[in-house]
């Protein structure tokens, strides 16, 4: 069953179409990665899914209901969103920040409940941050900081987690740490993960479904091994590649060079 679905989604900036009639189903419990070159509309698609951008035409459905007709709070109880490189005020502790994740579950006349505290503790344990909970977020390393933001999203107790390039600016081990963390939440807590990724191999290794965008249109959608092919990479990214399969039957991409020289790519 689709937990989310876009239907003929269209979005334009200054009259220039960025997303063109996208119809993409998001199956419950899956990890979906969105790939594509710069300017292909990946981030725009994610913002449309999160409700941060209103579609010009078409709709986004969350659990069968039109996203545009749901209040921000109702959406936030189902779906957590992590934009690219978010920034926190300089003096917030880890726990302060994670507690904000409970906002959609609180009403303005009542303070923190016991359940809120439990959810925050749970999110801190899941992300391995319990020992750091009184540290100041801005003093942490990039990887730790990203885990704090993910913990905040988890404290929301979402069914869906949307992330925009969660591994940017991280070194390779911290990139993998974040990917493993997301895979774990997906498997153990059945959280649907939708993310924009740059690294094709990460997408191939961790995703159940890969969406490849090209100039605002879906170029390919499906299982990584079906979608990530030399042909697709050539047409979409303009690169030559060799593709092998790892032990789990997932594709591993080795980029061998540009298809054409930069200046000639149209």
């Amino acid at each position, binding site marked *: 069953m689709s937990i989310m679905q876009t239907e003929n989604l269209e979005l334009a900036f200054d009259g220039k179409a960025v997303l063109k009639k996208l119809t993409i189903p998001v199956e419950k419990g899956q990890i979906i990665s969105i790939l594509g070159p710069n300017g292909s509309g990946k981030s725009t698609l994610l*913002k449309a899914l*999160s*409700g*941060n951008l209103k579609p010009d035409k078409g709709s986004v459905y969350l659990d069968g209901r039109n996203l545009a007709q749901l*209040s*921000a*709070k*109702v*959406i*936030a*109880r189902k*779906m*957590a*969103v*992590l*934009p690219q490189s*978010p*920034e*926190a*005020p*300089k*003096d*917030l*502790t880890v*726990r*302060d920040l994670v507690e*904000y*994740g409970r*906002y*959609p579950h609180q009403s*303005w006349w009542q303070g923190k409940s016991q359940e809120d505290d439990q959810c925050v503790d749970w999110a801190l344990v899941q992300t391995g941050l319990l020992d750091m909970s*009184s*540290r*100041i977020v801005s*003093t942490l390393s990039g990887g730790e900081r990203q885990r704090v933001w993910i913990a905040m*999203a988890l404290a*929301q107790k979402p069914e869906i987690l949307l992330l925009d390039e969660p591994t940017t600016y991280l070194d390779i081990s911290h990139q993998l740490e974040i990917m493993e963390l997301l895979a774990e939440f997906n498997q153990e807590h059945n959280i649907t993960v939708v993310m924009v990724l740059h690294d094709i191999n990460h997408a191939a290794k961790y995703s159940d479904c890969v969406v490849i965008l090209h100039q605002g249109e879906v170029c390919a959608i499906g299982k990584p091994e079906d979608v990530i092919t030399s042909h697709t990479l050539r047409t979409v990214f303009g690169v030559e590649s060799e593709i092998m399969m790892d032990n789990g039957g997932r594709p591993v991409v080795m980029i061998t060079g540009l298809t054409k020289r930069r200046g000639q790519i149209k």
Partner: protein
Amino acid sequence: MLNKQIFSGRGLRERGNWRALVLVVFTLLAVGGIILSLTKGALSISLHEIIAAIFSDNAGPSRQVIWNIRLPRTLVGALVGINLALAGAILQGVMKNPLADPHIIGISSGAGLAGVTIMVLFPHQEYLVTPIAFVGAMASAVFIYILAWKGGIRPVRIILAGVAVSAFLNSGISALMVFYSDRVHGALMWMVGGLSARSWPHLDIILPYTVVGGILALLGARRLNLLNLGDDIARGLGLNVEVSRIAMTAVAALLAASAVSVVGLLGFVGLIVPHAARLLVGSDYRYLLPASAILGVAVVTLSDTLARVAFSPIEIPVGIIMAFIGAPFFLYLLRRDA
């Protein structure tokens, strides 16, 4: 640097203690400011006499001074401090800009042009200064908001629109002052901001705004916290970003407009008091708003006392004192924290 140590990794409980300590110190300063403002002046009155005058009917010689001059003036000063400090704290959060203050949303220039117009063109209708200044302040705030609107509000557009509109209105003020240079003294005093001759009627005007605005500001504290995480995060957490931003700006506008229309264009409180409070208690608005309000009371009452006493018998506008002492102190706080 005590606060720095506590913020950088020690227990949450210690930080709670630190915040409580800062709030207590601010409160002591505010109470001290109110007492000094009541006791010091052209006539020195003991605390004992003041208490007797306020709480009993014994008509001592200083009772008139206290009831008719000192007490209302001090209370107006305290409320003005609260209003401007809260307005500044809110706007800095909403605009995510450290330079945001009541000037930015056009409150000061709007009130300024309206007030100066009355003072210069209709000097016999001085009683109109306060209501007309209030209308002018709100009108220019609304105007800036409309100008900045383009399918939603982006803080930087408000700030730029605010700068442009303020420049326009200020040129109007300058023009009036040039054309009627023989009448500018009163207008000039009002432009600097002062509590001289402020009494019970002024208190009646500002009090409802302080009460309602203060409550709304505190109710909005969590929204302000979320806005400080950035629009995308705030929206993802279920905050209606546009509505919150408009609502909190409106609260700040009412707070600032009521204060400015009563005492003139007191510039400094709304900009620096919230920063000083933020440096000491941190950016959590649930603590920052009360801390700013209390520090606002302290700063205005202490400055006003000094303004009356320093060059006695000449009284200088409180706005001058405040900027003269406050600005260096603020720079000290800034250097110390960096």
